[in-house]
């Protein structure tokens, strides 16, 4: 089932086009990452589909329009910063969220348990650290067990421990088969958590699809032998080797996932070459990301 369809969404702020003719389709059950550098239009896009910012042109529809204008009742969202009534406790803040969502028994204690805030259930929100506020925002998004979760930079501003905790929470929720839309500028995060990804820059969609297809699984091999020229000749025609370059008296290869280190070793040995150095590593995602975003 299609959860969200975005058609030609555009938003301008004066001379700046924050989101430029964006098209996206998000299927149910996917963990969809929206990846882009800071200021690329991720939050603006999410603000538009959540109805808090009006679009200049284009349209979007949630759940194939089956809920009419009540769609947000079926979505849980954390957008940018955690926003709560500072003088109220987490329990009372979540009660307001539940009241808006018309959830009769929201199970607030269990939700606070999930985000590790049960021990602070009765202290005022204003006394919370940023990490706790962020976790409460995730808790608010969980109220009413919504069909879709939107998480905008969920680990932003957290310390390493907080980041690990929040990622753990997201993974747990994703494992339950929930659709998650997550905006992030951190590749590593998207790669670890998401099944699909859309990469945007300056409001434009650069690429989208399955994480494996977009952020390719190619690996990099550093290989070296006594006769580098000969080694290069041998490797050039070997299937699975996509590119070869020379660096620091070593050859750097881009290879597909099917190729193993043993095969390379055997190939060299069969051609009378003794390999002095062989390292196989995943291609850096940063490099991939920079490659995709550099061209614009």
């Amino acid at each position, binding site marked *: 089932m299609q959860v969200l369809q975005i058609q030609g969404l555009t938003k301008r702020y004066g001379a700046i086009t924050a989101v430029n003719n964006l098209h996206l389709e998000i299927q149910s059950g996917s963990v969809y990452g929206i990846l882009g550098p800071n200021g690329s239009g991720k939050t603006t896009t999410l603000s538009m589909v959540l109805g808090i910012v009006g679009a200049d042109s284009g349209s979007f529809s949630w759940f194939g329009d089956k809920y009419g*204008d*009540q769609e947000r009742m079926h979505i849980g969202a954390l957008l940018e910063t955690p926003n709560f009534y500072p003088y109220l406790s987490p329990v009372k803040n979540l009660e307001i969220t539940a009241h808006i969502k018309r959830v009769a028994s929201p199970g607030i204690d269990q939700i606070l348990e999930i985000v590790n805030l049960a021990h602070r259930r009765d202290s005022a929100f204003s006394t919370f650290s940023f990490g706790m506020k962020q976790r409460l925002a995730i808790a608010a998004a969980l109220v009413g067990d919504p069909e879709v979760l939107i998480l905008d930079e969920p680990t932003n501003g957290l310390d390493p421990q907080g980041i690990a905790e929040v990622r753990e929470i997201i993974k747990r929720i994703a494992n339950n088969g929930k659709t998650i839309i997550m905006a992030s500028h951190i590749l590593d995060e998207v790669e670890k958590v998401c099944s699909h990804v859309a990469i945007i820059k300056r409001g434009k969609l650069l690429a989208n699809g399955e994480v494996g297809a977009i952020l390719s699984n190619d690996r990099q091999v550093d290989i070296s032998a006594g006769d580098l020229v000969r080694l290069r000749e041998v490797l050039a025609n070997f299937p699975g080797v996509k590119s070869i370059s020379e660096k620091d008296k070593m050859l750097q290869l881009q290879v597909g996932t099917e190729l193993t280190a043993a095969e390379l070793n055997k190939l060299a040995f069969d051609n009378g070459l003794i390999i002095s150095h062989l390292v196989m590593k995943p291609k850096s995602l940063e490099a991939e990301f920079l490659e995709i975003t550099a061209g614009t």
Partner: protein
Amino acid sequence: MLHLLKLEWLKQKDYILFKLLVAAYLIFLPATLFIGKKMQLDVGAPINPAKDFFVFPTIWEWLGYFGNWMGYFVLGFMAVLMVTNEYSNKTLRQNVIAGLQRTDFFKSKLLFMTVVATVATVYYATCALVIGLFHLGDDSLYFSTVFKNIDYVPRFWLMSMGYMSFGLLVGLLTKKTGIALFLYLAYSMVIESILRWVVHLYFFKNITMSLYPLNAMEDLAPLPVAEMANDLLKQHGFRMLLTPMEAALASSFYIALFLYFSYKRLKNSDL
């Protein structure tokens, strides 16, 4: 409807400033009246506070006038805070994200305001009746004397709604508590006076100068001696005090206008 009213109640009931404002209204409204006990005007003034403030039917006027100030400060500030807090805490945005329709957000504010104005009015009427009944003195009690100024009750309600809808609009326009309170006070105390007494009077020297929103609301429960001053002016062919009916019609018009613009503002702005 109750659902939306309860939503606002959940937001307000633990808010310290809300509680303070309620307490201030409940205590100060009757308390100001009792200042009259200490006021000795032996200069041949046409009023005698120690008596007029407390007996029927003038208690309706005097308590109404003190309530005018309380409404202007307490209820107006409450309405301002009701919306500016939602902006500064970004909770309006969060409410909408959670699924609240903007129209429903507006309705919950309007319903709450209506309830507050109604409770404030009932309290005013109760105070007037109770205090009045304790100050019957030796005069025989006539039903008609007690309820002579009973029209002050609906006027008081309309006045409360007026200040609150003005506060709501100012809050929604400025979004910031400090600026909103400043504008609320500056408009009513300075800007409108300049518009009326300098600009308007330059073009039209008649009662239309009193038809400005905050003045019309104030005239719903004016300073009782203002009526005497008005009578004096009338002999010279000029009057500045609106009749209760004029004030009520003008106030209703402005309330509708303020609510309309508040709604428009809320409906269309990016959050």
